[in-house]
């Protein structure tokens, strides 16, 4: 459900910077369904990738074959991302807070971490430069604290003025899609907008480290379509074990 809902956020023709993990799956689902002209950009340098198998990593050889362009990583970061050519950045984080800040660096203290996570990769600059950012993350109290242990990739930092204060060129987080529902942002803070079928607001509260703002009208997420399920259980199924 989470991956299907996330895929629906992508519009045909957009240029999306694809993060590792679930975003990779959602982008490849969208491209096979409603967004065949979606331009997938991978930090490995593949631009306009049309992978015939679901790439296990973001540097899979299938991203190269039949892509529009393959460029160096200096091109990717200086000219495409910092150059303002990316419509959507699609990220996954170990932790996300109410302002949409993402942590993929450490749980606990940096110098004495409880858990050492992989680090930024390209996420820090994707979060700063993409015109809008989508985040996909399974929800739990640990993964959704009021404040992340470490800001790897900034959302709205500390509130409505956070991004302006740092003069960040990109628009920041637009949607957070979890296994329970879907959040938008108002005044720099996450707002619960949608609940997945069978999920209650109580369940959302139980799996959130703060008391969430809730939209005036919370709508139910449309269940996965036959087409979405067919793909996820069929040609995209292999990838799910890796994410």
């Amino acid at each position: 459900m989470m991956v299907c809902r996330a895929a629906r956020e992508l519009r045909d023709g957009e240029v999306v910077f694809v993060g590792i993990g679930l975003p990779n799956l959602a982008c490849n689902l969208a491209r096979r369904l409603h967004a065949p002209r979606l331009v997938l950009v991978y930090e490995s340098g593949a631009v306009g990738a049309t992978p015939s198998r679901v790439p296990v990593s973001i540097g899979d050889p299938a991203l190269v074959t039949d892509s529009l362009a393959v460029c160096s990583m200096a091109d990717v970061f200086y000219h495409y991302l910092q150059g303002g050519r990316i419509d959507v950045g699609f990220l996954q984080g170990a932790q996300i807070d109410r302002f949409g800040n993402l942590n993929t660096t450490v749980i606990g203290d940096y110098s004495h971490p409880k858990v050492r996570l992989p680090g930024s990769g390209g996420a820090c600059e994707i979060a700063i430069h993409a015109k809008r950012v989508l985040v996909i993350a399974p929800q739990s109290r640990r993964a959704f604290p009021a404040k992340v242990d470490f800001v790897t990739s900034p959302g709205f930092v500390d509130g409505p003025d956070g991004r302006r204060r740092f003069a960040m060129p990109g628009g920041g987080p637009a949607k957070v899609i979890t296994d329970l529902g879907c959040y938008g942002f108002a005044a720099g803070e996450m707002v619960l907008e949608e609940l997945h079928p069978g999920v209650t607001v109580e369940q959302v509260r139980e799996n959130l480290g703060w008391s969430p703002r809730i939209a005036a009208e919370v709508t139910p997420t449309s269940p996965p379509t036959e087409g979405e399920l067919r793909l996820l259980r069929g040609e995209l199924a292999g990838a799910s074990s890796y994410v």
Partner: protein
Amino acid sequence: MAGNPVMGSKLVPMREAIAAHVRDGDTVVIEGFTHLICFAAGHEIIRQRRRDLTLCRLTPDLVYEQMIAAGCARKLVFSWAGNPGAGPLYALRRAVEEGVPGPLEIEEYSHFGMVARFAAGAARLPFMPLESYAGSDLPRVNPNIRTVTCPYTGRQLATVPALHPDVAIIHVQRADAEGSAQVWGLLGVQKEAALAAKRVIVVAEEIVPEEVIRADPNRTLLPGFVVDAVVHEPFGCHPSFAQGFYDRDNDFYIAWREISQDGARLGDYLDEWVFGVRDRREYAAKMGARVGELQAGDRWCAGVNYGY
């Protein structure tokens, strides 16, 4: 020159290239973003028991994890330390969290920061500006990430210092004996890393005559005059891949999850697959049928007319 392939040849076996160019205490870069990661060089460095290395790479990947577990490294400079597509690097975690097998200092950037560090090094600039890190905690834990005020606009920009590796090891699909090297598929940051380095080792799947390079100069990543040694090492990237030669061994990356979780198993792996073989040829022979299974299919591109 082209008529005499022996003249100017820098071809040496891997053992000699590492012995000559990688020294204890060096800053070493084995680049390649998922693609063209030279595990053959990493394994030879482990076999030669190099110590106190500062290892720099965007993604340490399994190659640096193996080198760290084998005790080669003092410090790691990186931007994303996971097992790509398969989970965490557990042995690297043990090194960072518990100092096993020895203390490991880390210096951490984002990918853009590492790319900019190599670009500054290659351009002989002391630093490179980039628009990143605002609002992030990374500058707080890495004092080398600083800011500069733009003299034209007054804007604050992040800066990272130039990186000048003692040696860069770059794997390519083909090179000539003097080191002119051609790559296709994912290009990563190899060009910048090599041009930033004091010494460059090119490792190639194929050694070709200089005419082959000259027939398609747009595909050349590095010209021979920046290269110090050339090694012919087919299958030198496994479990990483070489586009057009062999696929990424995703099953191995998945299997590594369990190996790296257990220090004893990782030790057994190194004993069997690194110390237990003399060179890459023995490694490939030991892989057996798997080598054939990973062989790339055909997808040739049309040539272009370079005439005038």
